[in-house]
C-alpha cells in the first residue's frame, strides 16, 4: 500500500490520466450536444468501436494517421445519420434504438476485425508532441505538455463546445429544441434539422473518440476494445450537468480512477486490485446518484417531437 501512495506512482497515474481522458472527452462532449437537443444517443459505445476499427484499419494499410482520423469521423457521421433517422424521423424510443446501434456497432466491428485483420496487431500511432518551453517544466511538463495531437484536441474541444452552446445562435437553437420543441417549432426552428445536426455532430465526435483510442493511445484494435467506455461517457454528461466544463471534471475523475486501477494492477498489489477494477463503474453509479444538478436537464430529453402533440 505504501508503494501505491508514493510520489513516483502518483506522477505515473497523472501521466496516464491526462491522455486517457481524451476518448471520454470526445464522446461525452459529443453526447452533450446530442442530449442538449433532446436526443439520448446510447449507441456511443458502438460508434466508438466501429470508428476505432475503421481508423486502425486505415492506418494499418496506408500509414496515414490523418486519413485514419478522417475515416473515423466519417464512420461516426454515418452512424449518427442512422441514429437520427431512427430516433428523430421514425421517433423511436431512444433507449432502445441506442442499444440497437450499440449492438450493431459491436457486432460489425468484431465481424470486420475477424475477416480483415484477424489477430491483434499494433500500428505507430500519433506520437507525443512536446510543446516548446512548457513541456520542459519539471513534473508538470511531461504530464500536461507532452501529449499527442488528438489529446490536445480533446482538451481544446471543451472551451469550444462551451462557447458554441452558450454564446452562439446555433447553441441557443440546439437548447431550444431540447427544452421546448413545440415553442421552437412555432418560432420557425426546424426541430428535426437541429436534432439531426446535434446527433450527427455528437456521433462524429464519438468517432474521433474511437480513433483516439485505437491510433493515438493504445495503438491496437481488438474485439470490444472500448469495454463500455461509451456508456460511461453518456453517464458523464449527466454527471457534468450538460455543461462542457462539468463534463471535463467528470472525464478527469474517471480517467484518474481508470489509471489508478491500471497502475494497481501493474504494480501487482493484490488485495485492492480486484476491487480497483470495479472502481470506475462504482464511481459512475455514485456519480449518477449525487449529480443532482437536474435543473439543467433538457426538458424534452428522451422525448420524440411530433407536431400537434403537446
Amino acid at each position: 500500500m505504501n508503494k501505491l501512495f508514493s510520489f513516483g506512482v502518483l506522477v505515473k497515474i497523472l501521466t496516464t490520466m491526462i491522455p486517457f481522458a481524451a476518448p471520454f472527452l470526445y464522446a461525452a462532449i459529443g453526447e452533450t450536444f446530442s442530449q442538449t437537443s433532446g436526443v439520448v444517443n446510447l449507441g456511443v459505445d458502438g460508434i466508438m468501436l466501429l470508428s476505432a476499427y475503421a481508423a486502425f484499419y486505415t492506418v494499418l494499410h496506408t500509414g496515414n494517421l490523418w486519413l485514419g482520423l478522417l475515416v473515423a469521423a466519417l464512420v461516426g457521421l454515418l452512424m449518427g445519420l442512422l441514429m437520427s433517422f431512427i430516433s428523430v424521423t421514425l421517433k423511436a424510443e431512444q433507449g432502445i434504438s441506442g442499444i440497437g446501434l450499440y449492438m450493431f456497432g459491436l457486432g460489425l466491428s468484431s465481424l470486420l476485425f475477424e475477416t480483415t485483420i484477424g489477430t491483434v496487431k499494433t500500428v505507430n500511432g500519433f506520437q507525443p508532441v512536446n510543446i516548446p518551453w512548457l513541456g520542459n517544466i519539471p513534473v508538470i511538463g511531461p504530464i500536461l505538455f507532452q501529449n499527442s495531437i488528438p489529446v490536445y484536441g480533446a482538451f481544446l474541444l471543451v472551451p469550444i463546445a462551451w462557447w458554441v452552446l452558450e454564446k452562439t445562435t446555433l447553441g441557443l437553437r440546439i437548447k431550444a429544441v431540447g427544452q421546448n420543441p413545440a415553442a421552437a417549432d412555432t418560432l420557425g426552428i426546424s426541430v428535426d434539422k437541429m436534432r439531426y445536426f446535434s446527433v450527427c455532430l455528437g456521433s462524429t465526435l464519438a468517432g474521433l473518440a474511437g480513433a483516439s483510442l485505437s491510433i493515438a493511445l493504445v495503438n491496437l484494435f481488438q474485439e470490444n476494445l472500448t469495454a463500455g467506455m461509451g456508456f460511461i461517457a453518456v453517464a458523464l454528461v449527466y454527471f457534468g450537468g450538460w455543461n462542457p466544463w462539468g463534463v471535463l471534471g467528470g472525464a478527469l475523475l474517471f480517467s484518474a480512477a481508470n489509471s489508478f486501477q491500471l497502475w494497481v494492477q501493474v504494480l501487482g498489489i493484490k488485495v485492492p486490485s480486484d476491487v480497483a477494477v470495479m472502481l470506475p463503474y462504482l464511481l459512475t453509479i455514485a456519480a449518477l446518484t449525487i449529480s443532482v444538478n437536474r435543473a439543467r436537464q433538457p426538458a424534452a430529453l428522451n422525448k420524440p417531437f411530433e407536431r400537434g402533440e403537446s
Partner: protein
Amino acid sequence: MPPKNASEGLLTRQRPGFDWSKLVLNLALPVGGVLVALLIGAIMLLALKANPIVAYSAMISGAAGSLSGVTQSLVKATPLLLVGLGICIAFRANVINIGGEGQITLGAIVATWFPLTFHTWPGWILIPVTLLLGFLAGAAWGFVPGILKARLKVNEILSTIMMNSIATQFMYLLIRGPMMDPAGVASGTFLAQSAALPRQAWLPRLVPQTMLHAGAIVAVVLAVAVYFFLWRTTIGYRIRAVGLNPDASRHSGINVPFYQALSLTLAGGFAGLAGAIEIMGVQHRLLDGITGGYGFTGIVAALLGSLHPLGVIPASILFGGLLVGANEMQRSVQVPSSLINVILGLVVLFVSGSALWSRRWAARRKSSENQEEQVEP
C-alpha cells in the same frame, strides 16, 4: 415499447372481443424487421464473398435440420425466454433494464456456490432451492438500480450497465480466487473456473443423448405465469398502468416509484433464474462467458415478441435457432458468427423504428372509432 397514446384502451375500457387486426400488425412489423435485417445480412455476406443462399441454408439446417440442432436451439432459447420475460415486465412499466448480463451472472454465481456448499442435499430439494436462490440473487442485482431510480431518480439504463461490469469483475474475482476449482489448483492448471456441480444438482434431461433439459419447461410455464401476472392481477395491472401513463397512475393513487423498482427487481429475478438454469442445465460449473450475451439478446427477443410474454416464446426460439445456426454457418462458409450480432442490432433498430407506424395506426383507428360513435346515437 408500449405505445404511449394507446393508454386509453388499456386503462379505461377494453374493447370486447379479440382484436385480430392488432395481432396482425404486431406480427407483421417484427417479422418485417427480421426479414429486412436478414436481407442486409445477405448483402454483407455478398461483400464478404460468401454465397448468402448457401450461408443461410447452412444456418437453417444447423438450427433445425437435426435432432441435436433443434434441441440445441431450444437450449439457447431457454435463457433468452427467461430474460425476455423479465424485460417484458420492466419495459411494460417503462423501465429499461439493460442489466440482464449482470443479473444472469449473479444468479449463476449463487447457483454454483449453493450446490457446491450443500452437496449432501438430495436433488429433489437442492434443485428447487438453488433455482429460487438464483432468482433472488438476480432480483437483488435488479433491486439496486430499481431503488436508485425510485429514490434518487438515477437513470436505470446507465446504472444497470455499470452493474453488468461490476458483476463480471466480481465473478472473475471469485473464479480466480475463492471459487477456483480445487482440482485445477492441485494439478497446477489454475483454470479460471469453479468445480463441477454435484450430479444431483444437474437439471434432468428431457431427450436422452441431447442437451435439452427441464429448464425449458420451467421457462414456458413461467411465460404463461407472467402473462397472467401482467393481465390478471392487480400488481400486474398497476405495473402496466405506470408504464402507460405515470401521471394518471400517480393521480389515481398508485405508488409509481415502488412499481418501477418492483418491475426492475422482478426483471432481475428472471435473468438470475436464467443464469441459475444455465449453470444447472448446461455448463454445470461457473466459467467466463457464462452469460452468453443473453442479457442483450433477451432484450431483442422481448422486443420482437411485442413485449408480450407469450410472444416472447416464438421470438426466443427464433433467436436460439439463429445463434445455433450461426455456428454452422461459420463452419460451412467461414463467415464469423458475429454476423448474427450485426443482424440482432439491426432487428432492434428496425423494430424500435417501426413503432411509429403502430402508433399512427392506433391513432388513426381511434379517430375513425370516434366518428363511428358520433354516427350511432
